[in-house]
């Protein structure tokens, strides 16, 4: 038996090795890819949950790769914050993988092993980004995640190739900014280890080079997370991606980027530097307000269901960035909580969009007509997801909003509070628009563009099961918010705010 001390590295190693195994075995037996990926993600999920429990019991864990002491070797640091994010990543990707069975078979019948290899490599990248305690190692992993996601999106249809190319450009710009910033830091400090940087930087916090480094890094990360107005690449990329890619990438990529932002702000630059020395949080909160309102309004103009969801992701990024930059503990708590909650909500809705596409070959609003009668289970889960996005208690969406608004009141940021309320109202309009279409409008012939008539019935079990696990978790996690906050998030918020 492997000792629990080795779990941190295994969280990354297991999916990485399975990427090779899936690829090799896939040459001989295509059918093995799916069970293999599910198995390895189950193991990863188990490992990350037990790591989280270790952290909750005994505090942060440091793991030295190859036994090299930091700052010379690469160090993995798992504290409350990234232990939680690791669980989110492994849980979401497990659900996405389970769900993907039918859709991958249908959409990419001749490239199953290749697809799953990239799929799990992306998961590896995301897990690595989250677990690493080294700023340059982080860059490498960002690129791993990015490159695989470009490919995973390019597998899609219609304008997927162009969208993916767009994303390549923006993603590369973002990563380069980040790398430049890290370069500045390295020149100034001679170190790439986050803990090390944190101890060196206060002494030279007045330096302009550090300020430039911070700016480059934060803008780079914002590009990666599609922070308005740097969001241009996201809607197309996520709309035209294959179903399984959308289901994996949409809930995770932006959330992991938000985590990276929080990590760099507090574990490299320190709360004191970003909030007191820089004093830019007012501007950034207003940028977040723009993101929330802009994203919501753009979502309102969409007639394609999945595209509408992608704009909501842009708005939700505003929630989290704004929450962090409220610079008080309620706001940061809300932002971290929202990483978990928004991942679940987005996943739930993308799973629904995936099912609808699987059954109707479309995800336009018109494709939803009459589905409450034809697919009552799917639509019931959709309703739960929708209510969570609106922020109806006791779903998770309510509780993150609760903390974010409390943070806004505490900080006197009335604009941010108004933005959150308005966004809830817009979400209500958006989702009831969808509900109306599904509930009132009778179904009629689908897609006269050459597709043959499809009969619509309830989704297969492999799709409904993960959907229901997620939909139920939207309520259960909501009710257990208290223990998540006191046991995990309270320790992740910087002290003394």
């Amino acid at each position, binding site marked *: 038996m492997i000792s629990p001390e080795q779990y941190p590295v295994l969280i990354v190693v297991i999916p990485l090795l399975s990427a090779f195994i899936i690829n090799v075995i896939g040459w001989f037996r295509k059918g093995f890819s799916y069970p293999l990926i599910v198995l390895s993600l189950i193991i990863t999920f188990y490992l990350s949950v037990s790591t989280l429990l270790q952290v909750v019991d005994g505090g942060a864990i440091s793991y030295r790769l190859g036994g090299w002491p930091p700052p010379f070797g690469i160090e993995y640091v798992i504290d409350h914050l990234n232990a939680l994010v690791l669980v989110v990543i492994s849980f979401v990707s497990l659900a996405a993988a389970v769900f993907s069975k039918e859709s991958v078979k249908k959409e990419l019948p001749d490239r199953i092993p290749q697809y799953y290899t990239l799929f799990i490599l992306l998961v590896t990248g995301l897990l690595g980004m989250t677990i690493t305690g080294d700023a340059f190692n982080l860059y490498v992993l960002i690129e791993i995640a990015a490159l695989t996601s470009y490919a995973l999106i390019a597998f899609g249809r219609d304008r997927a190739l162009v969208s993916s190319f767009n994303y390549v450009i923006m993603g590369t710009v973002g990563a380069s900014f980040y790398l430049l910033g890290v370069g500045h830091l390295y020149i100034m400090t001679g170190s790439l280890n986050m803990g090390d940087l944190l101890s060196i930087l206060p002494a030279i916090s007045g330096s302009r080079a550090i300020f430039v480094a911070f700016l480059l890094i934060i803008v780079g990360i914002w590009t990666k997370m599609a922070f308005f107005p740097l969001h241009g690449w996201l809607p197309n990329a996520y709309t035209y991606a294959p179903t399984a890619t959308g289901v994996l990438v949409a809930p995770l990529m932006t959330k992991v980027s938000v985590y990276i932002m929080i990590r760099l702000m507090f574990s490299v630059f320190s709360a004191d530097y970003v909030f007191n020395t820089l004093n830019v949080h007012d501007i950034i909160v207003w940028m977040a307000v723009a993101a929330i309102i802009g994203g919501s309004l753009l979502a309102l103009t969409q007639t394609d269901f999945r595209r509408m969801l992608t704009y909501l992701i842009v708005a939700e990024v505003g929630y989290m960035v704004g929450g962090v930059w409220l610079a008080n503990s309620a706001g940061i708590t809300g932002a971290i909580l929202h990483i978990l909650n928004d991942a679940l909500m987005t996943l739930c809705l993308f799973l629904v969009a995936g099912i609808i596409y699987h059954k109707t070959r479309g995800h336009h609003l018109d494709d939803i007509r009459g589905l409450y009668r034809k697919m009552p289970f799917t639509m019931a889960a959709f309703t739960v997801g929708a*209510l969570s996005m*609106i*922020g*109806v*208690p*006791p779903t998770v969406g309510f*509780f993150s909003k*609760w903390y974010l*608004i*409390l943070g806004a*009141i*505490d900080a006197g940021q009335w604009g941010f*509070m108004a933005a959150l*309320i308005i966004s*809830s*109202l817009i979400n*209500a309009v958006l989702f*009831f628009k969808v509900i*109306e279409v599904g*509930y*009132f409008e009778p179904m009629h012939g689908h897609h006269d563009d050459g597709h043959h008539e499809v009969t619509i019935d309830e989704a297969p079990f492999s799709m409904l099961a993960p959907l229901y696990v997620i939909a139920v978790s939207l309520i259960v996690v*909501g*009710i*257990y*918010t*208290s223990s998540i*906050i*006191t046991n995990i998030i309270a320790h992740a918020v910087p002290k003394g705010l």
Partner: protein
Amino acid sequence: METKICIRPLLAILVSLIAVAPIVLSSKRPNLREGWTFIAGIIKFSLVASMVPLVLDGVRLEYTVAQVLPGMAIKLAVDPMGLMFALVSSSLWIVTSAYSIGYMRGLDEHSQTRYFSFFAIALSSTIGVAFSANLFTMYLFYEMLSLATYPLVTHHQDDESRYSGRKYLAFILGTSIGFVLPAMLISYNLAGTLEFANNGFLSGTTSKTVMTVLLIMFVFGFAKAAIMPFHGWLPAAMVAPTPVSALLHAVAVVKVGVFSIFRIITGVFGTDMLRSLELGTVVAYLAAFTIIIASLIALSQDGLKRRLAFSTIGQLSYIVLGAALLSPKGMSGGLVHIAMHAFGKITLFFCAGAIYVATRKKNISDMVGIGKRMPVTMIAFLIGSMSVIGLPPTGGFFSKWYLVLGTIEADQIVMLFVLLTSSLLNAAYFLPIVYKAFFCTAEESMFDDKVAEAPVWCVAPLSLTALVSIALFFYPTLFMRLAEMALGV
């Protein structure tokens, strides 16, 4: 006051929620399905009723369901005010279920399983609001009720119900998210708690200006109370099947609105503080305006259900006015009016539905002479009207009497005139209907001999509620006692 931990309030909420499962499973066997509704209704009512003796002895029952946030729980508490509301709603649910069978089967409506399921969920939420121990729990059940009633309002799934449903949500959900949610968070930020307290948890925490803003946000935010200008959803919601209008839009949903405002005034702000800041008057004027205008609009409505809807808007503001008077008599009058108006107005709606089932008529101008064909229904209608107007020998007399005394006690002579004017208007829009129904020549009568009473499942419930309205005149003690205990007089 003695406090006891007791799971009964939770069970009373859950029983109808759990009943949804057997209701859905027996969708193919209507009699069994409605059987489940009755079983749930009877258990629910018994659970609520079983708490009456304890509460009358001054015991407060509490139960914490879940600690959802540090310092904030889903918590239930049974006090006289909540118990009174729960008694009214749970007893009327049983009656309405019987009526629903007559109405829905009489009209051969579609999707009856969905109808009965959401009805059960709506009742769970209503009892939840009644038994909430803090503002957060109340908000949770309030929202749950808004959403559970949406499929009921839009039952017909046609364009009109789609439009009405949209209006319904825009008002109800729009105000609760737009006003109540921020007001609740600001209150939490000020007081550090949301637990209803006898003198109001907000008292003494902030300036008068902030208090005024918060109070107005709460009063308008609970738009189920239909205070103008946030009343538009109620006439629109009349598109729903009549049992829904009867139980939800005359009793459960709308009274959840006024009940919430009562809680806000007593538990969040506290009567003493509102009195010292003279904020009651603000709310009283909003209510008075609604009372007069709604009664005037009701006069001009030809659709029977629409007239009833505007009458409800006016009567709801009676309750709000009672609360805003901040005097013991006025407030107890308001509280008791929750019960008295419930029995009177539900009778009227039942009658409107019975007429529709028997004749397919919706407009008052088409109902000349109907009293001769449907005498039981129309006599019940008369009794219901008398109760809403406030005439003896019906229960409505008591609540109006106390409200009038309350205005004198509070030295609000303007409000006294508002109440009296409105009573005249009530008589003016109800009594002609009854008069025309009975007193007309044979030529004027619009109905031939073939028209008869609606099915017994319709007529029995409305007779029962009419009789209860009269009984409440002779035996108002339970509700009066609960109201007095709630206000500590």
